[in-house]
């Protein structure tokens, strides 16, 4: 799944800034790398109203007046914050421009020539595209955050990967979009239901990334637990040694008690009592430690597991209702003096909607296995190459 984030280049920064200021009713007057920006007093924005000098990119003179405009400049970050919250829902139409009809991949890469392709829309369909940020965080790894688009057909609630790609193309900064977006007609309840579907689909698509972090976090937790086990094992050995020493001491004292005179007898009895108490303490600690070891240090394990647990947060940022057209695409093909028209299901923005199969072997046509002859019917490369 393609990351929806855009590269924050200086040219993107400048293009977005200029368009946004103008959409606020403001003006940008450019003098090379110095811009004079005016924002009207009544504009609904957090950006400062009035006139402002802006220095672009590498115009880095620290003592120059005005705000600087580069990917990380405060001014640009404020502008992005302002713009992202201004209109997070809306509608976008993917109207079909006949010149932009996407001919299927399986018609490329061979001698069959596409003479004409014509899309006939039969009905309008709509979908929603949701932009989500997904952040994955755990104590031992860096927080990973990515932005993903998820497109769901409004009626079938199926995911439309091709529409996601088309949406990202259409909404990139460099694409010249003439159409303006409009208000969405979605109701809140319908949007909520589609959003839930989109969330489920999204989680499936980011599973690989989550698995990657999960594996590393597990490894880190395992390392920590292993260190802990090692330390405890060492402690057990120390306690065993200590207990053995104490036990010898008790034996020695018992001998003194049996053999010694009255005075040493009393002293030894007293001392044996103390040593026995200490032995009990050590034995108890040892028992406790062994028991915890035999159970795999459940408390510590739980504590480490909790600390390394992955926190995945999914946050929807924009919802776009996307209108697109569905219909049929007639593709006129010519090869070796034969002309044939093929009709396939097609949608604007989503491309070919049906698979077509080889009339001879019934394999699905693909970029790797394209149509190579249209003489009597459509046949794939495999069939034509094997029949020579």
């Amino acid at each position, binding site marked *: 799944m393609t990351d929806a984030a855009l590269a924050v280049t200086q040219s*993107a920064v400048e293009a977005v800034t200029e368009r946004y200021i103008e959409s606020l009713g403001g003006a940008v007057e450019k003098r090379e790398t110095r811009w004079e920006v005016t924002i009207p007093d009544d504009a609904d924005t957090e950006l400062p109203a009035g006139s402002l000098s802006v220095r672009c990119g590498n115009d880095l003179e620290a003592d120059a007046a005005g705000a600087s405009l580069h990917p990380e400049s405060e001014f640009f970050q404020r502008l992005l914050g302002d713009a992202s919250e201004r209109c997070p829902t809306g509608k976008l139409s993917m109207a079909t421009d006949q010149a932009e009809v996407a001919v299927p991949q399986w018609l490329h890469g061979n001698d069959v020539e596409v003479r004409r392709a014509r899309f006939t829309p039969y009905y309008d369909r709509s979908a929603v595209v949701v932009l989500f940020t997904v952040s994955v965080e755990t104590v031992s790894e860096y927080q990973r955050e990515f932005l993903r688009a998820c497109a769901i057909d409004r009626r079938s609630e199926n995911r439309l990967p091709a529409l996601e790609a088309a949406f990202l193309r259409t909404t990139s900064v460099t694409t010249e979009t003439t159409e303006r977006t409009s208000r969405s007609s979605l109701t809140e309840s319908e949007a909520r239901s589609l959003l839930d579907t989109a*969330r489920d689909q999204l989680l499936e698509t980011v599973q690989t990334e989550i698995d990657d972090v999960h594996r590393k976090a597990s490894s880190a*937790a395992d390392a920590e637990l292993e260190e802990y086990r090692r330390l405890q094992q060492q402690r057990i050995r120390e306690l065993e040694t200590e207990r053995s020493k104490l036990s010898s001491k008790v034996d020695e004292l018992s001998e003194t008690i049996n053999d010694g005179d009255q005075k040493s007898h009393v002293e030894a009895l007293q001392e044996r009592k103390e040593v026995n108490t200490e032995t009990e303490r050590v034995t108890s600690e040892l028992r406790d430690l062994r028991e915890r070891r035999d159970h795999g240090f459940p408390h510590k394990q739980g504590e480490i597991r909790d600390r390394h647990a992955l926190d995945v947060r999914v946050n929807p940022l924009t919802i776009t209702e996307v209108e697109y057209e569905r219909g049929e695409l007639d593709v006129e093909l010519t090869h070796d003096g034969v002309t044939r028209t093929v009709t396939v299901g097609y949608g604007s923005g989503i491309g070919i909607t049906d698979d077509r199969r080889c009339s001879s072997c019934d394999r699905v046509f693909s970029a790797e296995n394209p149509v190579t002859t249209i003489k009597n019917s459509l046949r794939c490369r495999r069939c034509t190459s094997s029949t020579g």
Partner: protein
Amino acid sequence: MSGYDLVDVEVTHESADDLLDSLSENDTEGDHLQSIQAVRLQAGQPDSELRSLKELDENAVKLLEHQVDAAYRALFEMDGKALLADEVGLGKTIEVGMILKEMHFRETDESVLILTPAQLAKQWQAELREKFGLEFVCNYDDGFEDFDAHDYIIASIDTAKSERHRRTVLDRDWDVLVLDEAHYVKNEATDRYDLIDRLSYNYAFFLTATPIQNELTDLYNVVSLLRPGLFGTRDVFHQYFVNGDQETLVNRDELQDRLNEVMIRNRREDTDIDFTERTIDTRTFDPTPKERELYQAVSDYVKGAYSQDQGQKLVLMLLQKEVVSSPVALKETIEKRLDERSALTHADDLETILDLIDEIETVTKQERLLDIVEEARDTVEMGRVIVFTQFRATQRQILDRLAAEGYTVHAFHGGHSSSEKEQIVEDFEAEGGILVSTDAMSEGRNLQFCNMLVNLDLPWNPMRVEQRIGRIHRIGQKRDVFVFNMALKDTIEEYVLERLYHKIDLFQQSVGELSSILSRLEESGTSFEDHIFERLVNADSDVDLENDFDAMAVDLQEQRELADKLEEFNSGVFEGFDLGASDD
């Protein structure tokens, strides 16, 4: 390698209420497309380039491709936690300088702590200032208060871990931690390791040419400080990556993949650095009888005075160094001390020494210097020679003498302002002749247009000697470099030169190589200069002295061999590793 599902995954869906509310808000203005683009840009990486590079002064630092690559990868591909493990002499300090400069530019460096071995702290400070315009306080500065009083600090790791400072260092959340000679923290049972393990920081850059000191576990320890869990448990690391004999690696591809996430190692053979030859010509001269008498008197005085009052060590060391530089330097110091009437031992002996100074008519080194510069007039471009001395008085006298002989001369010392210094260097380049400089000539000065250097006197600190040579023998020098060392026979200078410096092949070592030799010697806390001085004053006879210096030379040679062996061992271990940037 380990249990995959040891930890849980908890998924939280943030509330979408505000977003859904906006569907029914009638007063929503603006273009939805702009909101989409803003959201997509907010999630995007800033154009990852080192934007501060354009701000660097090309005259102060010449960046090499592998250094720029390393800085870029450490910042943008390793998320600001990297082990910079280039082979010796490829400029790891420069790489960190670039990283810090970029972070400063991006304002992600509110607090920076650089931990280095003691003897490198001031050098780090000077390099960052001169090459990158970054100001750091060093714990040896008079103005240093404590670790919570400054935001940009260079300190010796041992100062930071000391009882006095440890708490303050650990109480703070540092933005950036730089750890030079990171192999010092290889052992997890040491206070140094413990300090780094407990330090709180967002970004960290560890430097070492030899990540592995004794065994492959060293690599595990250093990397685990940077990226806990990258190698799993210690046991798993051993079982999986280390052969039973502890000396070879197995599963190298996987190890390389993991190391690639955190370690950058450039090798000399992969860079385009092409150093020219360096020729060393050490010339020892017989002093005149009067000079010999003066040397003996001063040495006797120093020895006697030190045995009575060790508190005067610094000034005594100074006298011992000055007597081989020039009588005039010695005279100035003695007169100053006598004028100050400070508590001098045997002031009358000093008066006698002054008399001896006055009797000297011929200063041998200065006469012989004329021979060298005369040769230079014919052999090097525009007769350009740099003469280094440690003392301003010597410098003045040489300048006068050379000027009287008709040479074009230039003086460079710490008393000049930055712009004056720049002008002096420019004049030297344009007019040629002889630049007489003290050690105030900074790292950053670009002097590779000159290829002949004279050490009129020799610092007792080998790093300083290499720094002098490094002014001209640096990247960008196109010609072979000639270094003349001048010493008087049977003096301390001859011992230092012959017995120590030549033994460790000092004049052919890079700063990086020297630091790895010296840092072991100086781990005891005694500086190289102190070692020399102690031997000098404690020897009972000349034979003793010679033996002492021989013993020190043996130590040094051992350290050097050890350093060479380590470097070789690390090369062997990482041989076949391609730790360059990945292709994708």
